[in-house]
């Protein structure tokens, strides 16, 4: 009995929490997406089958949302990976203590509370005299309203760039010294070393960061919510995940369309499951499981 009871004891707390807040929500998202649950039908929702999904396809703004989502994910990803790569390379080329300092600075946007981080953006981009950008450009306006997309992508990108930066830096550090010495002996310039030695060896980490961040960008909306809340105006920066959130949890018109929001979330959940399973495959799972050397529990 001890054989099962002891591991079960160790695993129970984690399992309960995972079931409660991962497994049940996945099922609940799918189930809710098949009902017409909303503010008016909260107590007894009825089954509508694929009704919500039909509504979703018929939504006149669907195209706009999809385009926004594509734009947001693609451009932010480009910034994240590109900036991550630039930072990793540049901080590797300077003396390592200085490089560490810069990398640490780039962690700041990530560890700052999002509300504080977004507030700083708002402050810098507000009208003169307070707003620095208005001050410097001599044109006083609210730059978030004037150029919402640039702000959304830059603000998200500065948070996300550190992820790639750290992964690429570890990858560069893992390259054997001999390779650099060999390149130097062969007369390669720094740029040639970067292009012919480092970049080819970074292709796998780049793929990893791209895949990983695509999924998290697709589902994250925290910074957009705080910066523009999908505006300014009508759906200017509203992306899929934010739209789902708005529909289900904070509808402007007071009628929360929970079922429809759940249907949009369900699409993300399904994508999430598929992509995560795909990671499991490329992570080479077999190597991660080593048999324990103690057999008694």
């Amino acid at each position, binding site marked *: 009995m001890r054989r099962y009871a002891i591991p079960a004891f160790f695993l129970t*707390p984690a399992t309960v929490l*995972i079931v409660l807040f991962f497994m049940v929500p996945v099922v609940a998202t799918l189930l809710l997406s098949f009902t017409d649950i909303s503010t008016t039908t909260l107590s007894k929702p009825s089954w509508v089958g694929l009704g919500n999904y039909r509504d979703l396809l018929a939504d006149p703004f669907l195209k706009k949302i999809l385009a926004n989502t594509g734009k947001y994910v693609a451009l932010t990803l480009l910034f994240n990976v590109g900036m991550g790569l630039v930072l990793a390379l540049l901080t590797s080329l*300077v003396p390592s203590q200085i490089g560490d300092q810069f990398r640490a600075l780039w962690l700041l946007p990530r560890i700052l509370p999002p509300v504080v981080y977004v507030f700083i953006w708002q402050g810098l981009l507000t009208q003169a005299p307070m707003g620095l950008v208005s001050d410097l450009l001599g044109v006083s306006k609210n730059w978030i309203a004037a150029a919402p997309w640039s702000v959304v992508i830059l603000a998200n990108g500065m948070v996300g760039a550190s992820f790639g930066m750290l992964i690429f830096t570890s990858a560069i550090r893992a390259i054997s010294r001999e390779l650099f010495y060999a390149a130097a002996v062969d007369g390669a310039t720094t740029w040639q070393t970067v292009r012919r030695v480092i970049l080819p060896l970074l292709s796998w980490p780049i793929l990893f960061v791209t895949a990983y961040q695509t999924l998290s960008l697709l*589902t994250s909306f925290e910074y957009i919510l705080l910066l523009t809340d999908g505006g300014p105006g009508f759906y200017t920066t509203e992306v899929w995940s934010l739209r789902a959130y708005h529909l289900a949890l904070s509808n402007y018109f007071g009628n929360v369309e929970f079922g429809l929001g759940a249907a949009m979330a369900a699409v993300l959940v399904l994508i999430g499951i598929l992509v995560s399973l795909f990671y499991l495959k490329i992570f080479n*799972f077999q190597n991660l499981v080593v048999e324990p050397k103690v057999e008694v529990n």
Partner: protein
Amino acid sequence: MPIRPPSWRLILIVLGLITLPIGVGTLWLLLTALFNQVHGLLPVGNINFGNWRFLWEGSINGRPPIWVALFNSILFAATVAFIEVLVASMAAYAISRMNFPGRRLYLGMILVLHAFPAVSLLIAIYYILRVLGLFDTLFGVILVKASLEIPLGIWLMKGFFDNLSWEMEMAALVDGASRWTVFRKVALPLVRPGILALGTFALLSAWGEFILPYTLIVSGKSWTLALYLQSFLRESFVDYGMMAAVGLFYALPVFVFFLLGQKYLLNIYSGGVKG
């Protein structure tokens, strides 16, 4: 890189330029919080503590006192970190060091959940908390926050437990310890670096958490600092001075931590903690 390029000083300047916005933003927050008027980065008034009156004036525009929010934030972050470390360590120890049927399956599930974007479950979680009667309670949000990071925590801690010596574990068993005693007296003390890493990560992450309390908490008495600060953004007239002061107050532990433990932070975030 082992070989420093001849033009590294030039590279340093480039690095400085692209990093400038981070410095500027931080400086702006500091100046705006401290002076009564700031033009861009130029303070034009005197040092002004009026921005900080939320500290002694009880309630600002009908908000709960900031001390309530501070207390909630501390409670929230500390409890989340504690639950996360304890629950993840226990599970990670079992997965890493014990023999039981379904072990591979469990590990596979953790790996999938680790990559899975939990925020997409928010709508269902809102519903579940309502059903459980935990909606609008700090405890409910604590459970949710800790749970969503548990796969990551298990993954991180498993890596640390994997590296413990098997002979030491065998020695403890022969010395008369049960697995629970081995875990508590031998394994946990030895994975202290992992506990510190996960604990730090969890504290920082919970301290900054916005979307969960924003969605799952309504009443002011359960507000965290994130909600307190965000409530200023919804006002028609934004008092930048006071907001900056609140923001600085809220972010102060993070800044202090950042100044004291840069190297440590880099290690934690390079060590596979996702972002």
